[in-house]
């Protein structure tokens, strides 16, 4: 099998143009607002039909028996979910584009998972919480997100991508998805969230990456702090 064959037959390789959001015929699906833009590709980005894999430490082993998801920090009730408990939570579908700071954008993704708001409400997030630190299973990896982006309608803890379980290299079993920010904010292998008053730099942010990371702001997006 040639290289091209293996590429075209990759189930994650997109064969078609991205669908306009009004053509998504799924009841109750949440449409990420950025998919309604006339030009869906942010400044300095190009479309990829593939789904490249990037990470800080490689794919960590995550086993579902011991999987835990913890919510702590500025909350009334810190919570810990087992995988089974997490899967019982109400789920939604989100239609969104995905923009990587390394300049590729994967358009037309359907994510299924637990809305971030659901988690915030269950934990009773205190009003003084202004930032969220997402924690992941790979060697203490973290990323920081302003709470208003974390709580957007289209932000969720996803376990399905286009109807199939998210592959481990793409962050499964559960991945935070924040479509309105660059994709590194969408923590792979997420194991919990911490609500904070003060912003706290996560892993890449400690290396000069942007504290907010909005792809649509400024001439070239909020990529770095330099």
């Amino acid at each position, binding site marked *: 099998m040639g290289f091209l064959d293996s590429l075209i037959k990759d189930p994650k390789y997109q064969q078609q143009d991205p669908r306009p959001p009004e053509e998504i015929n799924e009841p109750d699906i949440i449409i990420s607002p950025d998919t309604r833009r006339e030009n869906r590709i942010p400044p300095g980005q190009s479309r990829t039909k593939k789904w490249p894999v*990037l990470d800080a430490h490689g794919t960590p082993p995550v086993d579902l028996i011991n999987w835990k998801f913890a919510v702590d920090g500025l909350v009334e009730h810190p919570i810990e979910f087992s995988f089974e408990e997490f899967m019982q939570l109400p789920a939604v579908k989100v239609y969104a584009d995905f923009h990587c*700071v*390394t300049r590729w954008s994967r358009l037309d993704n359907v994510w299924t998972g637990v809305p971030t708001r659901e988690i915030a409400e269950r934990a009773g997030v205190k009003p003084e919480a202004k930032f969220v630190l997402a924690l992941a299973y790979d060697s203490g990896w973290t990323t920081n997100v302003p709470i208003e982006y974390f709580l957007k309608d289209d932000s969720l803890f996803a376990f399905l991508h286009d109807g199939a379980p998210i592959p481990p290299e793409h962050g499964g079993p559960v991945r935070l998805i924040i479509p309105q920010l660059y994709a590194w904010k969408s923590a792979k292998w997420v194991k919990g969230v911490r609500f904070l008053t003060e912003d706290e*730099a996560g892993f890449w942010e400690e290396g000069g990456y942007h504290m907010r990371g909005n792809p649509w702001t400024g001439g070239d997006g909020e990529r770095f702090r*330099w």
Partner: protein
Amino acid sequence: MTAASTGTLKKTMSENYTELIPGFPLFKGFTANGAKRLIDAGQVKQHAAGTVLLKEGDAADFVLLVLAGTLEVFVDREGQHLVLTEAEPGDILGELAVLCGIPRSASVRAKDDAAVLEWSEDAFRTLLLRDPSLSQRIFREALRTLVEKERSLIDSVIDAQEEAHKSYSADN
């Protein structure tokens, strides 16, 4: 070079460098924790004035970030000691030979007492592969240096030609 003059610094010294590194243009935007990760990926070493850190022709299996002191980049040719450039804190040395898999193209020695962060080839490649922003900055800097060297080489070739032309005209 004595055993005492070269060695891994104590942790307390490494901690001071975590505050220094974000001040280097290449690492702008890094926090102290980000800088600590860079240090943890390698080894901080101190070298007394005169120590040779890299030798022209040697196999290249590590990269240096200058933390303190001044280093001299030089080649010895036909008994002549040619200083190509000087490296200051914040400069990276030896990265091209490592990336291209070629022997060291020049030697480097400490002009005064110096401290460097030494990354193994593996550690350096991992830094670049994982962090596209850092790798962009390092490549940009390395290529800029190379282009500048090429420009000065062209200038000296032209100068030499003019000299040769002058002496040729004088001969006639």
